[in-house]
């Protein structure tokens, strides 16, 4: 059980989000309609029920951070190029900006206040995990970034830059999803490349 070592880790980072980067020839699925019709920042922060994907404790807007503000993925997911784990941003990373940026309207302010309150209370925000590879498979993020470049995340994760609330675009738990790409790119299909 690959992740077992973390389960008792209490307040320590469970940095196992699967931020992967295999580009595929199949067109990336379109992001959801709300953000297609509205400018990202117009979307009210409370309107998450209609959005795909699980509701998070804080309505963190990938579409604003990554889409509008054009932050690179690796600003927050800092270890993706060197480690099998992509890295979940620390609360300190959030506060690096949000110490100053308080939000442009009331719905944003509400969410940013949640982050500041959590920081003041020294309580990390517990995000709901969306991407999780089965524990008997090993997915080295850094190899995929090395091969495909630093902006290839959307290959597996979809166009996160246009998602107000992240949802699973591809069934990354399905081995066929991995294999299709490995076949197309003539990459090892050996079982023990991932399973050990």
């Amino acid at each position, binding site marked *: 059980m690959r992740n077992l*070592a973390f389960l008792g880790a209490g307040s320590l980072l469970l940095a196992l989000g699967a931020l992967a980067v295999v580009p595929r020839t199949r067109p990336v699925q379109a992001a959801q309609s709300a953000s297609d019709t509205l400018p990202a920042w117009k979307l009210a922060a409370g309107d998450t029920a209609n959005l795909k994907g699980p509701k998070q404790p804080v309505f963190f807007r990938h579409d604003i951070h990554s889409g509008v503000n054009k932050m690179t993925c690796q600003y927050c997911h800092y270890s993706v190029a060197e480690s099998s784990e992509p890295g979940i941003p620390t609360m300190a990373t959030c506060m690096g900006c949000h110490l100053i940026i308080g939000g442009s309207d009331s719905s944003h302010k509400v969410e940013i206040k949640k982050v500041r309150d959590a920081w003041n209370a*020294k309580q990390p925000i517990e995000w709901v995990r969306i991407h999780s590879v089965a524990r008997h498979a090993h997915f080295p993020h850094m190899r995929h970034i090395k091969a495909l470049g630093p902006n290839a995340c959307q290959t597996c994760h979809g166009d996160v830059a246009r998602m107000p609330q992240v949802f699973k675009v591809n069934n990354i738990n399905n081995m066929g999803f991995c294999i299709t790409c490995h076949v197309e790119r003539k990459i090892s299909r050996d079982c023990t490349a991932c399973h050990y």
Partner: protein
Amino acid sequence: MSDETFPEGIDRRRFLTVLGVTGAGAAAMSGCSTDKVEKLVPYLVQSDDQIPGIPTWYASTCTECGAGCGLHVKTREARAIKLEGNPAHPVNAGKLCAHGQSALQGLYNPGRIKGPMARQADGSFKPVTWDEAIALLGQKLQGAGGKLGVISGAGRGTFSDLLSAWTQAQGGRVVRYQAFDFEPVRAANQQVFGTSEVPAYDFAAARYILSFGTDFLQDFVSPVEHQRGFAESHGFNDGQMAKHVMLAPRLSLTGMNADEWVTLRPGSEAAIALAMTNVILAERTGNPADANGLRGALAAWTPEQAQEASGVGAEVIRRLAREFVSAQPSLAVAGGISTQHRGAIQLCAAVNLLNYVAGNVGRTVKFGADLDTGDGYGAVESLLRTMEQGQLAVAIVHDANPAYSLPKSGGFAAKFAKVPFKVSTSLYLDETSQLCDLLLPGHHALERWDDLRPRKGATGLLQPVMEPVFQTMATGDVLLKAAQKVGGAVAALPAVAAPSYEAHLKAQWLTVVGTDEAWRAALQRGGIYGDSPVTSVRLAATAANVTYTAPAFDGEAGPEGFYFAPVPSVMGDGRFANRPWMLELSDPVTKITWHSWVEMHPETARRIDVREGEIVQLTSPHGTLSVPVYITPGIHPEVLAVPLGMGHTAFGDFATGRGVNALDLLDAKDGQGFLPYQATRVTLARTREFKQVAKTEGTTRQLGRGIADAMTLAQAKAGMTPALARKAEGHEEHEINTELEVEAIEGFRESQLEQRKRGAYAVEGQPMWGMVIDLARCTGCSACVTACYAENNIAWVGEEAILKGREMTWMRIERYWEGGEDGDPLEARVVPVLCQHCDNAPCEPVCPVYAAYHTPDGLNGQVYNRCVGTRYCGNNCPYKVRYFNWSAYNKTAFPEPLNLGLNPDVTVRGRGVMEKCTFCIQRIRGAQHTARLEDRELRDGDVVTACAQACPSNAITFGNMKDPASRVAQAQQSPRGYHVLEDLNVRPAVTYLAKVLHRAEG
């Protein structure tokens, strides 16, 4: 499937039926994950030295025995997950024994005390806060008025200095206690050389090694260092190897590695040493010259007299003496628990003379390093007397368990009970802490700041590699805080001004290293390492008084009385008995796990008509114990051996009530300043009750199958292959196939070679992983076994499962006996057996689901999530290296918090899958990832398997066989190379190099 369980109400077989018939299981199958919501919890602030998914290594120092080996601790996400040796350390040079590896299970032991506790009026322990606990300690110390006694097992270092100063400032007294101490060695050195130092033994330089019963590879002074040196000199290098002779009544791990085992009557070793010294002095001029002065004193000790005392032939003694002195330098070793009878000081003194006249002192026996030892048993006894007389108000026990490790006949518990207030800093609720009034559980060595000075030239630092698992406190901090409560002289100590023990330690170090930079450099390196000084010693005036008198034994003499030999085993002095890795690790000699046994010679067993597994009752004047019989040729017929370290009455669920405590039969009277372990005779009574012995040994003989091959030194020098050597010995050709079969195999081989040029195996640029194991170096110490458990998340299965043959030791050490019949000398062969990663693997074609298959880089892969558990592969494996996971070990073998030590890079296997050695594929893939990120090819040495990394003998080489420059490819070229069960044409990737025997000439 790895770790998922099946939904309730549907068992595995039912699941497979549904899947097979209707395909309805497909939905349940996809993803293999539950719908449980997982949370991602970020750090508040990024730690400087932790990147998720990348291990962080810290240098530290091992505290499992007194040797003080250097450590590299691998942590992942701030949890220690693996211990390896520190390559820069002069003692262990990157290697680590099984005990050191198992420190992880001490850290994550479920039996640890979770926080401070105080005894209540009703006798129970109640958790208290640290403030309350320290206030209570301070108050009691204040009221003690100097009547304070401390028993400490801590090694020499800043902590023990502080403890001494702290105790003395309060008018108390510290005894530094080690259960396995070296009092006879020190007393003998005082007598012969005028120094009570324990010397360092240089096995690597010795050309001839003579052990007088000392099990120097397992439990004497510095086992890893000895192991390294022994493999260096006794391994076969360029046609040279040292000879090793063992004089002992029992074949220990060290004895199994002897070229010649000379069995003798217990207690008579000194007579032989004196006779040998006499022979040497009589036949040649002593070197150094002052040795000649001994001639007169020793002239009376003739080999004939020694023969009478020991039962060893006078001619053998003469021959050994001549061999010993003509090999330069040689090394004779004496001391340790295995020969601690009442003549132990005489023995060590006689061996000192032997080394001196052969000119070994200063060359292989090196004084000057001032190795750390305890204060000796005499000091313990004197402290116990003060307890008995009610002279102590407060007793503190630190890092020691005397209630267990002292014989019950000494009455420790009763004496200890006379102390009104007893404090323990033990990490575990063991026999001693159970008797205490206040429990102040300390940090584990991996959780605290500390240092150790095991010898001059090697000072090791310890640093916390992670947050403490429980609410414990470093005992150094407890001392400082308590001192402030006590006030007076102890509060005035300069150390007490330090805000914490860490600050005190650093301040101490700064006085030595000078700058902050140097301190950090030392911390990063693991300490200050250098060469130990060597001082020359000369014979003292008392040296000529060395003599031999047959030592006295308690208990019945005559044909009904057996010599009782409590022997150190995997459990050490008992401190390892709460660790499942150690309980499951087969004893290197008997291959028994999880319980105690008594070793008996087959002749004795025939005489008194007992069979293996019969429980016999052993009675000495001091106690009785019942233990099952194990029959082995490796013991003198008049001796019965029982392993030490088991039979705990407390010390956590793993240790409690398991086996017997051999100390129960011993006399605790000291007399000469040491505990006489080997001075008891016992009588034996049959019970007619039986217990199946939980051993991992199959057949004890090789039956001509050539599994652990060996050849003589002459044959090895002549460059013979094992097959030729067998032929030269007059054995039949080792061919089990008929002529027709051989022809078929040859044809098959050719077609295989053709096949290799096509298909999946013909991938260019792929390595071909292989291993070479040099049996001339392997001693069977089993460090590799525990390293494999730690690296690969291997589940321990327990005694019941081992009785069914269901152990899961991916790497195991097989032990076979040779000879021992019809006057042939008994020899042991050990061979590490792991998956052979056969090119032509019999397991692969029989797997119906392709879970067992061959990878392009030459591994025999095992895909857990494909495996459906038919066990065909295991049945078809000629090496028995595939292990079926019979139970939900992923749920039961790692109870909290042992699960924190799991390696996140390796799948934890659940019930119903086959598992086996992967050649540490996670390390191979990891090295490939690193190489790719650095835009380079893999280099030889990038991948080191856990077993090869740990092996103190450097017997294992791993690498890419396709690269002709690699060490593994070079080692394979040795004429000594062979494959186990080669006739089967399975083409293993593991090559063994035959053991080389340095037998007696003629």
